[in-house]
């Protein structure tokens, strides 16, 4: 009788452990998805914040400069200037780097370069995905000629 009672208790205990492990596994699967989603969201947040910061920096530099892309070239020495376009290469920490080590890039292209009001389109890109984009302007104010009237 005593042995039968012990056997019953052990099997109940084993059953309890098995049910607990099962519930724990199910819950862990659900919670793990939550953790993964939170991790991905945090990564997205970091990328967006840094992309906004980089684009704002480039826009400020452009607006404070003389309306040409050469001002940016001094600040970002690893950049590449094509016809009407400039590409800045950034590493994982959104710092300027060479093209080989780059994870992100900032593409600056003239949207209006004909008049005194020069505009550029600034886009921070991860491969083909645009993280953030803004337009910045630079205005060269009119001056009278040396003789007086134009």
């Amino acid at each position: 009788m005593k042995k039968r009672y012990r056997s019953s208790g052990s099997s109940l205990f084993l059953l309890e452990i098995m049910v607990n492990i099962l519930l724990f596994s199910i819950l862990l699967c659900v919670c793990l998805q939550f953790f993964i989603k939170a991790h991905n969201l945090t990564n997205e947040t970091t990328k967006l914040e840094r992309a906004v910061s980089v684009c704002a920096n480039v826009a400020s530099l452009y607006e404070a400069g003389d309306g040409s892309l050469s001002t940016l070239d001094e600040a970002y020495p690893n950049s590449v200037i094509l016809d009407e376009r400039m590409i800045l290469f950034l590493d994982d920490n959104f710092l300027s780097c060479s093209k080989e080590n780059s994870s992100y890039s900032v593409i600056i292209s003239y949207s209006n370069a004909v008049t005194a009001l020069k505009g550029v389109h600034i886009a921070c890109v991860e491969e083909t995905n645009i993280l953030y984009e803004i337009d910045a302007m630079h205005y060269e104010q009119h001056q009278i000629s040396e003789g007086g009237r134009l």
Partner: protein
Amino acid sequence: MKNRFNFGFSSVLISFIMICIVTFSALSLVTANADYRLSQKVANRNSSFYAAEKEAYAELAKTDDTLEAIYQEASDASEYYEAAKASLTTGTWSSEEKGEVYTWIQPIENNQYLEVSILVSYPDQYTKTYYHLLTWRTYIEEDPFEEQPLNLIGSH
């Protein structure tokens, strides 16, 4: 007695661990979501600011063009200022110690605005430009209904 003690203990332990894991996972997800929303708000606000700046620069260019055209037609400074006041009506004019100031406001978003002020000047051989930029600032217009104090019990 020993068996009775063991029985149920693992359930309590697992329940406690499960509550902890659920709480932490929910908190981390809520925090990450809140951070993401905040960063999106910042990004949108930044975009709105640069869009407002673009409009303000366009207005500045238009104003400069108008002043240049007026300068070509005007015979003297007083005529130049009168014609400028008559032509530039989008913003507001004010007379200050430095001279005639033209101000316009560009909305950014909600109750945020970009204020631009220029000192309109009659160009000569020293000051060759038609204006000098005085103000380029953002400000928040406070909502008068935002703070409505309530009389609490016992307060006078």
